[in-house]
């Protein structure tokens, strides 16, 4: 029975000019968005490779100089771009792409893509993710808002029931037909995305499970919409009211709840202002170890420890250059202070994520969006991870320079390191977060999405067990 209803619904959809036009429109939109995204990726990736190369060339081509001066001049690390970004650009355009690594100071990433674009960019961007999150549900609504109301308006529902079909069988058959249409459309979208992906120049291999994870999260999202559509069409008296209700749901799910959750998370768990953030760091650093301050209490304690370790009574008796040691140790301490304050920011972000998760109960778009951004490495999680990695590299980088002073500058006025030192400093190699870790971090989002899909489906079956049409 259900198979017959499914086949019948698909046959009708195929013959419906409206469906065909909608399908063609969305397929064109999908292809265009993927091509645009592909082009953007290629451009950014080329710039990335060029910048990484140029930064290293600049670093290695420095003349002889004091290693600590070199540390102050610093270098740059460039945020890499993950190939799956062609799927979802997330917040990438609004976050910095470059981190300056200097002495004593942890910098945040700067130079973001949006600043390079005209104001018209704010009118919106056609990305694959935009098509999936906003356009696909709209297409589903236009395909399915009248699956039941049309039967009621035409009165074909009477004949269907007399012939022995039950409301539940009809609901299931119509749900399956809508799901199959959505699935075929999504499959064609994924095939285009995969083909484009195979032509990308990539520095990193993408595991199949990441594609599967992306596909799953979007399928769960569309499943929730499919069930809501069949449910509303079953309960609405007329096609017009069904369409109005469904468009209202779309507005709530895709626009209102995400906006409210952003405001709510920012209000409940606000980030400190940049000034407060900087002041807090300065306060913590004031009484701590500083590579340029030999006289404060922390420096005195450190000096005592060093002298004891070497079994000498004065700095002059040390076999190494003490200022280099102090700089290296000061760098470690300063970095710890930065890490502490950046961890506080990240803790605040985790609390905000909790708000988003709770709001996800009211909108399946939120968990979908967060999983999608995580797997495409375009979310805050990736930004924090990259900046943490950059900071770890900064400490290693500065320690190597400062230890060079400690080891080689003893007894030399105005020590200058040889140019070969610069190339001996290892390059920055970003280690991408493990896929398993990403999945585990977003298990809650998956559970909420699964909850949405299962609950909306069961609700549809329960509510549509009787449908009023007389």
């Amino acid at each position, binding site marked *: 029975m259900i198979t017959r209803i499914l086949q019948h619904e698909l046959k009708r959809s195929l013959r*419906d000019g409206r469906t065909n036009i909608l399908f063609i429109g969305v397929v064109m939109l999908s292809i265009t968005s993927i091509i645009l995204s592909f082009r953007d990726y290629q451009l950014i990736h080329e710039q990335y490779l060029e910048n990484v190369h140029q930064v290293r060339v600049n670093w290695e081509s420095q003349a002889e100089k004091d290693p600590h001066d070199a540390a102050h001049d610093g270098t740059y690390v460039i945020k890499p771009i993950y190939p799956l970004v062609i799927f979802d650009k997330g917040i990438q355009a609004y976050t910095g792409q470059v981190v300056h690594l200097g002495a004593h100071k942890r910098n945040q990433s700067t130079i973001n893509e949006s600043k390079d674009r005209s104001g018209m960019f704010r009118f919106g961007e056609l990305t694959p993710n935009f098509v999936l999150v906003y356009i696909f549900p709209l297409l589903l609504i236009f395909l399915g808002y009248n699956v039941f109301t049309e039967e009621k308006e035409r009165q074909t529902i009477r004949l269907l029931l007399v012939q022995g079909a039950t409301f539940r069988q009809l609901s299931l058959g119509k749900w399956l037909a809508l799901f199959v249409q959505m699935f075929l459309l999504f499959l064609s979208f994924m095939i285009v995305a995969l083909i484009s992906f195979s032509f990308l120049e990539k520095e990193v291999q993408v595991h199949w499970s990441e594609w599967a994870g992306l596909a799953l999260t979007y399928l769960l999202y569309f499943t929730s919409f499919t069930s809501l559509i069949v449910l509303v069409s079953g309960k609405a008296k007329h096609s017009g009211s069904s369409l109005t209700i469904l468009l209202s749901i779309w507005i709530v799910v895709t626009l209102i709840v995400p906006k409210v959750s952003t405001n709510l998370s920012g209000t409940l768990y606000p980030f400190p202002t940049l000034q407060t953030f900087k002041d807090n760091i300065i306060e913590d650093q004031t009484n701590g170890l500083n590579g340029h301050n030999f006289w404060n209490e922390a420096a005195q304690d450190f000096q005592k420890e060093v002298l004891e370790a070497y079994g000498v009574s004065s700095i002059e008796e040390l076999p190494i250059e003490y200022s280099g040691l102090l700089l290296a140790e000061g760098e470690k301490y300063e970095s710890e202070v930065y890490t502490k304050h950046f961890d506080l920011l990240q803790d605040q972000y985790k609390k905000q994520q909790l708000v988003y998760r709770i709001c996800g109960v009211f909108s399946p778009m939120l968990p979908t969006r967060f999983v999608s951004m995580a797997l495409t490495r375009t979310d805050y999680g990736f930004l924090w991870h990259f900046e943490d990695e950059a900071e770890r590299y900064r400490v290693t980088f500065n320690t190597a320079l400062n230890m060079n002073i400690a080891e080689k500058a003893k007894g030399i006025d105005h020590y200058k390191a040889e140019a070969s030192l610069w190339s001996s400093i290892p390059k920055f190699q970003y280690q991408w977060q493990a896929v398993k870790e990403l999945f585990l971090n977003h298990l809650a989002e998956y559970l909420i999405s699964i909850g949405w899909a299962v609950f909306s489906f069961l609700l549809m079956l329960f509510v549509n067990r009787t449908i009023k049409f007389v």
Partner: protein
Amino acid sequence: MLQAINLSKTYGKYHALKDLNLKVNSGEIFCLLGANGAGKTTTINLFLNFITPSSGKARINNISVSENPVETKKYVAYIPENLALYPELSGLENLTYFTGLANKTYHKDHLVSLLKRSGLQKDAFNKRVSEYSKGMRQKVGIAIALAKEAKALLLDEPTSGLDPKASNEFSDLLKTLSADGIAILMTTHDLFRAQVTGSHIGIMKEGRLLEKFSSKKVSLSELEKTYLNHMNTAL
């Protein structure tokens, strides 16, 4: 085959149907006459379980409709005033789908023969229903009933809006079906059609069945007189 026992339906204080007692045996055509609001469609809807009775019972093949709606639907077919089919499908495709829903699977040739039997022109079988006249749609409805091998047929003003020729063809079809042993309950405003087609006639007013008799025992003029008498008399 079709039986109403003290069947009533009320909406608040309004009695749409009150204590209807009615029996339609196999091979009989029972025509229910009455003005709008007399309770004719309510009776059909109760037999189809589209609405639930306030009291009393509707039975098909001795099975209570409200207690076993799925079972009773196996025995019944239905043609409303405007049979709604899927306009984007052909008559044959509509027949195939609705027959399939009744868990009947036939070869295409058999379905074609049913359409022929219902009187639909051969060249219309594969045309989209959007191009059909009302009479043609009603014929597809008959073919659906035939395919279902229904023992009872419920018709809600099926000839309303049909031209005389089409109405006549439809009446002949119903007579053929009743001759095959199908019990038919038909509501209509058309006294002539009821007298010509029906084996039994009932007159309804304000939810009550006022009178029922054999159509053979009354002429058309007597039927008209009786009907008007009832309509002009306050209950």
